[in-house]
């Protein structure tokens, strides 16, 4: 079989067609900056986040070094919400994310004061779009460009403190829904702008779709309508829903895959959350492309090269049959992960992830 490009490999996995190898992806997160700080001429996340060319070049350097099949652009969660006046708190470590500081919504009445943002003008969305454009020019259609964009409900928990949003779900649902409407339109417009600049898929962060955070009924009321509207309004982008909780709502994400054209998969912590990879493959593997395979909290961080290879081999055996599998850690990689472990993960995935 002729060797596929990363894009062909990734597309095949999403369509449950047989690729040459299991595609490898990861949420490099702040790890990327931590690892590369000696190679970079600028000093911190703030400078990274202010310049799209830097963002793209960092992604390229990291992909060249570690390997893998996706050019995934690190976000610092502020590029949208800064447009509403949310202030980022600059971390005191040069290689760490900025954190959310002052919020735009504190009282129920603040939700209706939010305006729909323009991705070409507001916040730092234009910077992120610049990064997409540079990566598109570099990779053309050879490597899928991935963006990570929070769902509308998750974005609300960046516009207001999470505790406030959760209390408003119970005590001020109408006010919250007014805010959600504005946020939904903004997130959709931003995703379309990313697609226009070359993004192929979104790691759509449905981080609140986990049963220890909301009930199914609550997510159906506040999350599902907005998620579905965004999927419908972003036909040019594939979506892989990422849930970082311990009980991801597979039933809802699977329904998205069945009822929309562009939701293709789920990314979750298969080694720490329910279901594990075996259960997920059996129950949801036909509807969803599964993006998982190694424990980013233990094996990848503290394991030996042998531990990593063993876990990669085990995951490939479970999830490769029938395709629909992208090998990946369950969430952001810890900055203390040894370089050798990352390289070993990609190498092992190539070794054990060969289809023919």
């Amino acid at each position, binding site marked *: 079989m002729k060797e596929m490009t990363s894009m062909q490999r990734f597309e095949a996995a999403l369509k449950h067609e047989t690729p040459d190898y299991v595609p490898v992806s990861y949420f490099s*997160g*702040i*790890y990327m900056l931590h690892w590369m700080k000696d190679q970079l001429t600028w000093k911190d996340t703030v400078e990274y986040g202010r310049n799209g060319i830097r963002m793209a070049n960092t992604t390229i350097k990291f992909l060249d070094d570690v390997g893998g099949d996706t050019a995934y652009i690190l976000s610092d969660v502020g590029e949208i919400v800064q447009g509403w006046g949310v202030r980022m*708190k600059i*971390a*005191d*470590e040069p290689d*760490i*994310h900025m*954190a*959310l500081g002052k919020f735009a919504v504190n009282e129920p009445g603040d939700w209706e004061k939010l305006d729909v943002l323009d991705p070409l003008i507001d916040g730092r969305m234009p910077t992120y779009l610049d990064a997409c454009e540079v990566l598109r020019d570099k990779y053309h259609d050879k490597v899928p460009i991935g963006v990570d964009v929070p769902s509308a409900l998750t974005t609300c928990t960046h516009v207001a403190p*999470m*505790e406030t949003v*959760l*209390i408003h*779900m*119970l*005590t001020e649902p109408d006010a919250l829904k007014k805010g959600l409407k504005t946020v939904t339109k903004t997130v959709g417009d931003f995703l379309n702008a990313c697609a226009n600049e070359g993004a192929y898929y979104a790691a759509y962060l449905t981080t609140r779709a986990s*049963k*220890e*955070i*909301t*009930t199914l009924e*609550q997510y159906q009321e506040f999350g599902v309508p907005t998620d579905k509207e965004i999927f419908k309004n972003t036909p040019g982008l594939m979506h892989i829903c990422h849930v970082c*909780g*311990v*009980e991801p709502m597979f039933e809802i994400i699977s329904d998205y895959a069945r009822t929309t054209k562009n939701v293709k998969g789920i990314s979750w912590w298969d080694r*720490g959350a329910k279901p594990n990879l075996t259960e997920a493959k059996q129950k949801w593997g036909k509807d969803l492309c599964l993006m998982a395979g190694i424990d*980013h*909290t*233990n094996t990848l961080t*503290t394991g030996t090269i042998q531990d990593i290879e063993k876990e990669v081999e085990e995951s490939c055996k479970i999830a490769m049959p029938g395709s629909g599998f992208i090998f990946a850690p369950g*969430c*952001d*990689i*810890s*900055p*203390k992960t040894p370089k050798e472990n990352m390289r070993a993960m990609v190498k092992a995935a190539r070794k054990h992830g060969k289809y023919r």
Partner: protein
Amino acid sequence: MDKSQYQRIYDCVVNGKAAEAQKIGEEMKKAGIKSTEIGSVLIDAMNLVGHRYREREIALPQLILATHCFKKILAPYTAESRGSEGIVVVGTVKNDIHDIGKNLVVSMLQVYNYTVHDLGKDVPLEKFVSEAKRVNAGIIGAGTLLTATMPELSEIINLMKEAGMAGKVKFAVGGAPLTTTYAKHIGADGYAADAILAVEMAGHLIKGEQSYLAARQDKA
């Protein structure tokens, strides 16, 4: 406390009646109800809320609202708490602003008569150690929700060693991505999977047990 007073407090927390909570606390105090009696009802109520949460009958919004009511009812009494069970310094590590779980732990420990020094969120690591020294704490509790900030927990242990606290002050950790395996790996003395287990864990550590890792059956 009579049955109707008990039921009123219990119902307020279990059903998240936020608007009534502060008033109930003030009325109970005026009626001469002791904080320990109030605390006992609140724990009963939170035990039910915690059970429902663990069984996934409810989720975080109800849990947070219950905690909100819990704090409001207790507010008139908090100033009088003697905190005689032990001294605990608690915070969310630097670069992490998630504090819902930490706040639950603080409230629960206060109700169980611990003196809690809440450092808040995004706390510089040195602050855990300096504050523990200043207040002569028995336990330092640090939490994080982010994978990216998990390594900060082992940095606190290093700082405790440098400050000569190792073996004298216990170090406990908590947060969604943590497990007993991780707690053991970094050398933490304590781990609790939720706020209710945190009280259990604190009791064991304060009594001098070397370590106590309180995992839920479904997580370890």
